[in-house]
């Protein structure tokens, strides 16, 4: 893992938001910085964050394995999160998920609680279900990277994917 000067500076800035003797508070912000830059959180990254915060690496690893927002494996170029929860399910998110996978060539048959992400054969898209994205009135909704999309019906899947080259 190559730590750029910019990443290191951003990490120091994040650490400065918390009291000097409570650096551990910056764990989530630092993990976000790492994931933003590399797409996922490697073992090296865990060690780096731990050393920045002067705590044992296990105290960082236990966060990466707990929080659904952190990944330990590389996603596709574009990572899609489809909301699975009640209002979106009532408006057809399972069908939307199926259609996106069909078009993008993603096989979700092996996903599990501990390994929820499936990647397309060409590595362009990856996908997982997310728990309630808090836009229940406009379901089905999904996030592609940081972009939010509302009312994504199965028939809209093609146009959605076409936005991402």
């Amino acid at each position, binding site marked *: 893992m190559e730590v750029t000067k910019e990443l290191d500076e951003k990490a120091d800035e994040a650490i400065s938001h918390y009291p000097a003797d409570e650096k551990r508070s910056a764990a989530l912000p630092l993990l*976000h910085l790492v994931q933003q830059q590399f797409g996922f959180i490697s073992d090296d990254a865990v060690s780096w964050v731990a050393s920045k915060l002067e705590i044992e690496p296990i105290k960082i690893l236990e*966060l990466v394995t707990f*929080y659904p927002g952190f990944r330990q494996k590389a996603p596709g170029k574009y990572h899609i999160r489809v909301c699975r929860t009640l*209002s979106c399910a*009532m408006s057809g998110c399972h069908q939307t998920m199926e259609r996106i996978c069909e078009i993008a060539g993603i096989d979700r048959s092996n996903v599990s609680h501990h390994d929820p992400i499936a990647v397309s054969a060409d590595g362009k898209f990856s996908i997982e279900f997310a728990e309630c994205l*808090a836009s229940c*009135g406009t379901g089905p909704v999904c996030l592609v990277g940081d972009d*939010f999309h509302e009312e994504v019906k199965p028939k809209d899947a093609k146009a959605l994917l076409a936005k991402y080259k």
Partner: protein
Amino acid sequence: MAEPRYITGKKPHAREKRMIFRNVDRAGWNPSIEKYIKDGGYKTLKKSLKLKPGEVTDEVKASGLRGRGGAGFPTGVKWGFIPPNNTKPIYLICNADESEPGTFKDRYIIHQDPHQLIEGILISSYAVGAKIAYIYIREEFPEGAIILENAIEEARKAGLLGKGIAGTGFECEIYVHRGAGAYICGEETGLIESLEGKRPYPRIKPPYFPAALGLYMCPTIVNNVESLCHVKHVMEMGGKQYGQLGTPRNTGTRILCVSGDVQKPGYFEIEVGKLTMGELIEDLCGGMKKGRKLKAVIPGGSSAKVLRAGETYTIRDGDQEKNIGLNDIPMDFDTLAACGSMAGSGGVIVMDDSRDMAWVLNNINTFYAHESCGQCTPCREGSLWMKKITDRMLAGGGVPSDVETLVSVGDNIAGRTICAFGEACSWPTQSFVGKFPEEFKKHTKRRNVGKALNPEAKVASASLMDKD
């Protein structure tokens, strides 16, 4: 994809009273500080800074404002729990971890009116004596986090953050802290653990009431986004005046978010208790979808107990008791509690007669099984058992004892856990199975013996009721 439904310039419904959502969808509006200040923004902060902190708290107490995050606890009373002889730093945390299924109000405040939230945070920080405030925002609002950070920068440049705010001796910093996708971080002690850089395992109360032993074991006030915005309006109007809005003990306005099987889902800011469930569904949301009848409503986020169409509830009206139906329930804290459910976070999920209640409960169970933090055994194991049982019922592998087992698992979680997640995950099972037993019994006839049970695929195809 449809164009965004909530377009700028969309007029609020005539029954709404917009205060918090005044600028949401407003024509010609944008979230910049220029717009906000030109519109009278930050005047209330300056007015509040002329009072003593205790006087601000007194106004909030007088307003009767109750927390909008779920529990409905009086905000001013919560602030009053900070020990009077405290010498440690005090923290204020804005809970922007909006994640209760059915709830989508904070999203619009953050995206479209971030300065209203910042003003509310600053007034509240002044009242409780906090020099640092954190906005804990859920990771799934990446755009919201950037908007807030920009707004904080704008406020700093305008002399409204840091030292000597608005030329007074008051100092305060606000930082945005992003979560990482865990629902349990909406629980205030879990949120605090998360903010300390740990797994968000909730703390046991007593002794860990945040107002006394919160962030870094210092006094900490955790308030919901909407609650903090209300503080600004309380100070603008005066506590007593604010208390005239809504109904006694259920004061002010609140945002109701409606989703599910109605013609026009959306968000509506109403005076608390001045609108009934029937009016909400029929008038504001355009009624049920064509040809469909109302079957059930979850009135306050997915953990609230479900209400069944056709039920009657006995409520007190002054000294009298009276019976009312689902459509007559006024949308306030106390009546919904008297009807055996709760106003919770304001997320109303409406279901029509095409919905299979076992499928609905399975969806909710899957959520809670995924989100249990795993600290307490009854919740960690029980939430997953409930999900596995409803999975199996939908996949055609149900057995007659399943109905009873489901309820008994739920009964053995509630009241036996450190935090309220135990109740949140068992109330849906207790209420859905208790109120719709026939729909669950239907799934106890084995249909697919011998076939592989692939819950997700089955669940998807079983979304509509079996007609057999």
